[in-house]
């Protein structure tokens, strides 16, 4: 039997009663509405005095209802008009005491509920830790919820890709169709629902007593839920709050699991792409000349640094068999970057090599003829994909250099001890017009002359504050470096542009070809 408020506050009430006795009362106590005396204290033997005594009472209320009264019996000599006022005040004090106790009991109940919810969430988190599949999480939810509430059956369900998956503890008491309908009903209602098994159509043919269905929404659309069946005593507010708290927590964990699985799939895809790009880069690197050709009277160096794994820049050399005083050189830049540019770069390289060898064999090999022939074959393919390629082609012999530029820049010539100047392109890039409009330019080289042909990845390189490397800076560098060998000039150019970028990622491929006539 629950402790009554009178019993619980026995000490305080006794103190009030004793204060009355000390003030001359014959008896003092409290009693409940039935008239049964809950507590009564009196002094000495019952009075033999024949004088009538004065009995005073005051009601003790809780929530507007009388729960008892306090009374005192006073001899006439002790009675005055303040006695009733004092007794009323004592009754109010006891009323307030009971109300405070009632509030504290309510708060304690809420504290215990919140405490239980926290422990349940902690237990669920512990049991779901390291579980990264939805099915494992459903399993943990069904076990924790089922054991926690001592239900006949707990079913945790989720519907993904049109398929209903679920886990049950210990065994399902409802069939899959009923569980699905219940979960959908809770989602439709947007809140938990409780059902009485004997009165609800959904489960009327089952033998279950009661059901609690808590919906779980993942990412606002995916449906999951927890169905608890047959709890002795049913599902009250504390149980519903508890289940709501742990399903919310589980919903968050399911979202994390989905996110993890998606990240994993994405990472696997990225890894596969990365592997393919690495292979592509190796293939592309092999397409570039692995050694610098030896040509009498000319110091040559070329290098390429792609912005991504593969790029659209290329350089190449073609020399006639058994010849050390003649060479044809190319430096090209396919529009765009990445795999599409790399594919067209490979195609352009093949085309240029084939045309060069064919023209060499016929004895009509000039840079203009090579680019004109190549453009004729490349035009349709480049136009089809909306791309183009800038190309510098040159033929070096003991008589000097002949070159043509299909939209390519910068092409810099720095005479020995002189000031570098920029050659303008003499035709649009390959793949833009059906006919090649460029022409051969002749340059008689003197010992110490330097030519630097680069791609726009150099001049358009950006510093962290957005400034561009620019042609002027490149011209100044070439002049200051002209005394060095070709390889040293190239290295210094790369160092300078890298320093200029200040750690910013390289935005475009950077390719350079250096020619320097030997003294």
């Amino acid at each position: 039997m629950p402790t009554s408020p009178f019993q619980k506050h026995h000490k305080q009430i006794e103190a009030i009663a004793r204060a009355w006795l000390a003030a001359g009362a014959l008896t003092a106590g409290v009693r409940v509405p039935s008239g049964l005396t809950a507590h009564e204290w009196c002094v000495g033997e019952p009075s033999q005095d024949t004088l009538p005594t004065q009995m005073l009472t005051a009601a003790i209320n809780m929530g507007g209802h009388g729960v008892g009264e306090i009374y005192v019996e006073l001899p006439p000599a002790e009675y005055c008009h303040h006695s009733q006022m004092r007794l009323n005040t004592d009754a109010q004090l006891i009323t307030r005491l009971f109300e405070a106790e009632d509030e504290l009991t309510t708060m304690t109940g809420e504290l215990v509920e919140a405490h239980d919810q926290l422990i349940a969430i902690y237990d669920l988190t512990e049991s779901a830790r390291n579980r990264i599949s939805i099915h494992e999480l459903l399993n943990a939810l069904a076990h924790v919820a089922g054991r926690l509430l001592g239900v006949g059956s707990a079913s945790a369900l989720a519907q993904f890709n049109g398929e209903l998956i679920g886990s049950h503890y210990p065994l399902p008491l409802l069939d899959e169709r009923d569980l699905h309908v219940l979960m959908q009903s809770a989602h439709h209602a947007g809140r938990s629902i409780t059902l009485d098994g004997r009165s609800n159509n959904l489960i009327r043919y089952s033998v279950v007593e009661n059901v609690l269905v808590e919906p779980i929404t993942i990412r606002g659309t995916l449906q999951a839920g927890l169905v608890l069946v047959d709890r002795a005593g049913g599902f009250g507010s504390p149980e519903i709050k508890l289940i709501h708290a742990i399903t919310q927590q589980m919903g968050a964990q399911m979202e994390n699991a989905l996110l993890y699985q998606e990240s994993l799939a994405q990472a696997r895809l990225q890894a596969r792409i990365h592997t393919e790009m690495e292979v592509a880069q190796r293939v592309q690197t092999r397409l570039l000349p692995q050694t610098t050709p030896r040509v009498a009277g000319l110091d040559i160096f070329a290098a390429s640094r792609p912005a991504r794994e593969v790029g659209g820049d290329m350089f190449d050399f073609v020399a006639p068999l058994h010849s050390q005083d003649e060479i044809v050189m190319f430096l090209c830049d396919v529009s765009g970057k990445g795999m599409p540019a790399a594919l067209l770069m490979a195609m352009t390289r093949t085309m240029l090599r084939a045309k060069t060898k064919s023209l060499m064999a016929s004895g009509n090999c000039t840079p203009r003829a090579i680019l004109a022939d190549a453009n004729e074959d490349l035009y349709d393919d480049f136009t089809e994909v909306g791309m183009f390629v800038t190309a510098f082609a040159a033929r070096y012999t003991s008589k000097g250099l002949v070159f043509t530029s299909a939209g390519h820049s910068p092409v810099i010539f720095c005479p020995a001890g002189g000031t570098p100047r920029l050659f303008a392109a003499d035709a649009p890039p390959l793949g833009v017009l059906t006919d090649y409009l460029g022409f051969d330019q002749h340059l008689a080289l003197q010992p110490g002359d330097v030519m630097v042909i680069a791609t726009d990845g150099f001049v358009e390189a950006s510093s962290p504050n957005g400034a561009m490397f620019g042609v002027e800076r490149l011209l100044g560098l070439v002049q200051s470096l002209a005394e060095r060998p070709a390889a040293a000039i190239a290295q210094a150019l790369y160092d300078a542009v890298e320093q200029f970028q200040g750690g910013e990622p390289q935005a475009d491929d950077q390719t350079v070809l250096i020619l320097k006539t030997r003294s």
Partner: protein
Amino acid sequence: VNQQTMTATILIVDDYPVIQRTLSHTLTKHGYEVHIAGDGLAALALLSGAAVDAAIVDIAMPEMDGLTLLQTLRADARHVDLPVIILTASGQDEDRMAAEAAGATRFLNKPVSSHQLLETVAEVLNG
């Protein structure tokens, strides 16, 4: 929880009023009679005048700690079989071993859920 345990009387021995009140709330809500003592000495005084069916005892308390209380009870023929649940926040294995050595019936770590508390109380009462 059967009818027999529903009328049982449980002694809560803990110096922390919040624990006293929350444990008492959970137990009385489920039909148990509850007595409360703030430490081991108060518990012994209470046991000398009231019959209880089981005790829930904290370890760290002023005056007399829970392990000393447990040893005292086990040395007393009247309480040698009293089911005692040690409920402590320490979480240390040494405390668990010491409690088991002193004759604890069960050992629980704080925080404990209402469900676990009620389940454990029912178990110790049912032997």
